[in-house]
């Protein structure tokens, strides 16, 4: 008898066609023109980015479009060194939660334009509340990578 416990490699790949809907279509169209769109709830006045069809807190769809400046401050970040299947890019890279100016939530994206070798220096640079601004991808595809990353403002 061969080895008693064996494993079998089995990849599952499935194709999708995701509907963006009205709100997210407009959001991504905005990115193509280097404009970030948020929505403001007319009831609670909170502004969310990415834009939402309805306010998650009030459940109302009475929201209005507001242009959001491509800059904000760091809420939190981490340096990714781990690898996994289907990862968006090879590590190391930095993911962060950024509160864009005038909004009431964190926006998830990369931080770039910084050295990642020296963690001490990195910590100095990326303090909570540190200002960052969007660096646009020269080639736009109307997706989240139209913003290449956020870079610290000197």
């Amino acid at each position, binding site marked *: 008898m061969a080895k*008693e416990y*064996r494993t*079998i490699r089995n990849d*599952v790949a499935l*194709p*999708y066609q995701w509907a963006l*809907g009205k709100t997210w*279509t407009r959001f991504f169209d905005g990115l193509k023109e280097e404009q970030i769109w948020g929505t403001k709830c007319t009831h609670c006045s909170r502004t969310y980015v990415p834009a939402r069809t309805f306010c998650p807190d009030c459940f109302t769809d009475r929201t209005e479009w507001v242009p959001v400046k491509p800059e904000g401050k760091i809420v939190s970040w981490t340096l990714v060194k781990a690898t996994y299947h289907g990862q968006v890019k090879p590590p190391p890279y930095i993911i962060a939660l950024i509160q864009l100016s005038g909004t009431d939530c964190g926006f998830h994206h990369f931080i770039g334009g910084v050295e990642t070798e020296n963690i001490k220096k990195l910590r100095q640079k990326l303090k909570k509340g540190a200002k960052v601004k969007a660096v646009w991808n020269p080639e736009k595809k109307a*997706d989240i990578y139209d913003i290449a990353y956020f870079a610290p403002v000197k």
Partner: protein
Amino acid sequence: MSKEEHRIVKGQVMVPYELALGRTWCHFFDCLKEEKIMGKKCRKCSRVLVPPRSFCPRCFEDMEEWVEVSQEGVVETWVYVNMPFFAQELKIPFISAQIRLDGSDSGFIHQIAGIDLSDFDKVRERVKLGDRVRAVWSTEKKGNILDIAYFEPVK
């Protein structure tokens, strides 16, 4: 605002898996390599199940006893598949069938081939309930279910 107000985004999710066969199924596939089809027999209800189980689904008892079953059996039901879908393993058209191998008490799912599948009306005349079929082995064994290439009608 864009003309394409409701856009669709195409994507793919690919996830890799490393699936454990466990002791029972490992032995089953090892035996397929040796051109033997093995079932397991329940001590309590005496049923022989293929694929084998580590426990009897009805009695919830451990199934300990290995039994070699026949490579021939009877067609219990079948379906002519003429529908393509993403990542389909078998080329259409093909026949999926439930086969009761002699000496077993469950239906075994595999394909029936070795006959002309191009003309459906001929297939319908050729494949009937209760037909006897037998396993045809792949020359190259990989320790998976296609070590049995297919079942063919016994003339």
